[in-house]
């Protein structure tokens, strides 16, 4: 062995070979190190026409201000268009703030992780902090990601409680009059939803961010009204969906807030859902409020009643119309047409909370929640009432640049591209060949 080593170690070929191997190894090592360093400290310029590698100004501000580490999990099919787009988008987020880490997860290959976050659909986003708080959203767009970051990082995620015990529409009821789709829709945007029995309770739970009274049909007890009133007076947020034909005892609470509900349903012969009765209102225009500012979709209100405000209470509460009819609506079969309020916002001027009252509880039942406008309206209200007022609306960038070619122009492009340009190359080649022959 020693003889073989002595024989070959001094040979030039051996030394050269070792030299080449070491040099190659060192070179590859340096290349790897350079690429790893650049992988951490890089910059990029977005020259695309749609600016798809650049976030909106609002998103950029929110991401740059992020001061805690977050993990983004995108549950989608691997190597799909969604996963490519998600990766492009999240790479842009990470470029702005290294506190954001992301993983694209195929729920079929990681069922335990999908189960942990109760992911039931593809294209679901989960954003989580290191202490296991998380927010879930459906869809993998810039708005979903940024808004989920906002919800997760601006305070603890509070719950939405739906009051029960008075014949309200149930959050687990999948029938046409149930609120199961509403519950799923709220959970999909990151809000835990629970039911709340006021009977026997002393106060509203501390983790409540919003209380919803959804269509009560039997009267509330005194202490239940007191609990809700105390909650409102201490700054709480309430959504009350009431039906005028039902005596629920809510009218007393509404009266204290300066709101009354008129009996009879609203009719609108010029704006009602086609194929349905005149009482099924179809509303397309909205007052300019925080919850309806960006709402472009029509909403449907079956059997809604009009709300009115006591003028004398304006000194105590600030009122704003959230949803109103067209100018052709009337109450019942009355001939007096006008604009009537269907949804009102009430904000206490002395530190009380905020209430949004609707003269209808059916517009978010399973039957009507499927109307995109109805679901969007309630989601906006929930976001607004839960305190996530700084949510981002990402405008869809439109970059439509037409090009109209006449037949002659198309033909000219065709012949130039397919014949003239290649022919010039043939001519050049023939010229060089002839020239060479002549040498």
């Amino acid at each position, binding site marked *: 062995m020693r003889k073989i080593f002595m024989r070959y170690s001094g040979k030039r070929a051996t030394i050269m070979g070792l030299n080449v191997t070491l040099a190659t190894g060192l070179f590859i090592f340096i290349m790897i190190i350079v690429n790893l360093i650049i992988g951490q400290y890089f910059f*990029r310029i977005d020259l695309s026409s749609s600016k798809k590698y650049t976030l909106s100004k609002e998103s950029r501000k929110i991401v740059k201000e992020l001061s805690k580490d977050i993990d983004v999990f995108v549950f989608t099919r691997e190597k799909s268009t969604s996963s490519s787009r998600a990766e492009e988008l999240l790479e842009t987020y990470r470029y702005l703030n290294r506190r954001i880490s992301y993983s694209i997860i195929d729920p079929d290959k990681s069922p335990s992780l999908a189960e942990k976050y109760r992911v039931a659909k593809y294209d679901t986003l989960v954003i989580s902090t290191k202490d296991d708080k998380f927010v879930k959203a459906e869809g993998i767009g810039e708005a979903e990601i940024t808004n989920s970051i906002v919800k997760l990082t601006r305070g603890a995620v509070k719950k939405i409680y739906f009051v029960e015990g008075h014949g309200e529409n149930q959050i687990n009821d999948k029938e046409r009059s149930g609120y199961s789709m509403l519950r799923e829709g709220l959970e999909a945007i990151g809000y835990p939803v629970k039911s709340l029995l006021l009977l026997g309770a002393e106060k509203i739970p501390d983790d409540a961010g919003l209380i919803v009274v959804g269509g009560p049909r039997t009267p509330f007890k005194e202490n239940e009204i007191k609990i809700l009133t105390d909650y409102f007076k201490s700054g709480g947020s309430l959504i009350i969906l009431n039906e005028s034909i039902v005596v629920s005892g809510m009218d007393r609470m509404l009266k204290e807030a300066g709101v009354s509900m008129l009996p009879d349903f609203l009719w609108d012969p010029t704006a009602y859902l086609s194929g349905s009765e005149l009482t099924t209102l179809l509303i397309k225009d909205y007052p300019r409020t925080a919850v309806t500012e960006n709402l472009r979709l029509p909403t449907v209100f079956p059997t809604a009643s009009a709300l009115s405000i006591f003028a004398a209470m304006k000194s105590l509460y600030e009122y704003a119309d959230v949803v109103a009819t067209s100018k052709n609506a009337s109450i019942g079969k009355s001939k007096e047409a006008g604009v009537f309020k269907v949804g009102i916002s009430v904000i206490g001027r002395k530190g009380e909370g905020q209430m949004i009252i609707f003269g209808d509880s059916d517009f978010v039942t399973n039957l009507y929640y499927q109307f995109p406008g109805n679901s969007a309206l309630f989601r906006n209200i929930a976001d607004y009432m839960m305190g996530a007022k700084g949510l981002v609306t990402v405008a869809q960038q439109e970059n*439509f640049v037409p090009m109209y070619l006449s037949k002659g122009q198309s033909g000219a492009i065709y012949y130039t591209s397919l014949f003239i340009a290649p022919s010039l190359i043939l001519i050049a080649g023939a010229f060089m060949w002839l020239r060479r022959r002549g040498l």
Partner: protein
Amino acid sequence: MKYIMPVVKKELRLYFYSPIAYVVALVFLSVTGYFFSINCASFSTSAIQASASEVLRNFNPTEVIMSPIIGTMGTLFILLTPLMTMRLFAEEKKLRTIELLMTSPVSVSELVIGKYIASMIVYSMIISLSIYMPFTLNYFSSVNWGQVIAGYAGLLLMGSAMIAIGLFTSSLTDKQILAAVLGIGILVLFWFMGLATGALQRGVSNLMTNLSFLKHFNNMRSGLLDLRGIIFFISVTAAGLFLSMRVMEAHRWK
């Protein structure tokens, strides 16, 4: 480094006196020209339909015509570049002119760099023949020149890496066809590396995706100039040239 320019001039003369550059340019122009004319006609028809019904997001000549055409150019050159580079060293070895070169005052690095520069010049000239396309689109409509420039930059950077790999495979053999086949094989591997990695572990899958020409090239033709992609292509170019130099050094000392 004083012998680089004579090597470049010699290689350019060989390129223009042989049919290979013209054949590559002819194939390139014919194929891309065909797709360009078809895309222009269908874009025009679709634009009429789109404006009549609803506005489509990102329906513009840059995204719909130019970016896919640049993608087609990249795919074409996966096959054409090895044909351009196959003769660089293989022919010299076959004709035994390599011994003359090895004993001449021209160093191995000057030889390799000179041949690389000549190939890059020819490649750039072929690419530039397609410049009439964005100008045509801009005449009839408008293009986003930033995205077009990013796309051509991607073509040049990727072309540089492909030429370096082609040079390396040519240095390995005296048979041109073998050099071409080997070059195509390596380039196809690099092109498709990131795809179908679902069965692998995430870390390995990410590594392979980052080593893929397709990923970095697609970013550039979509308008994203990312330093990581630029450094990646430069690294592959440097690696190809380095390995070529090592092979030719070993040949010199045989």
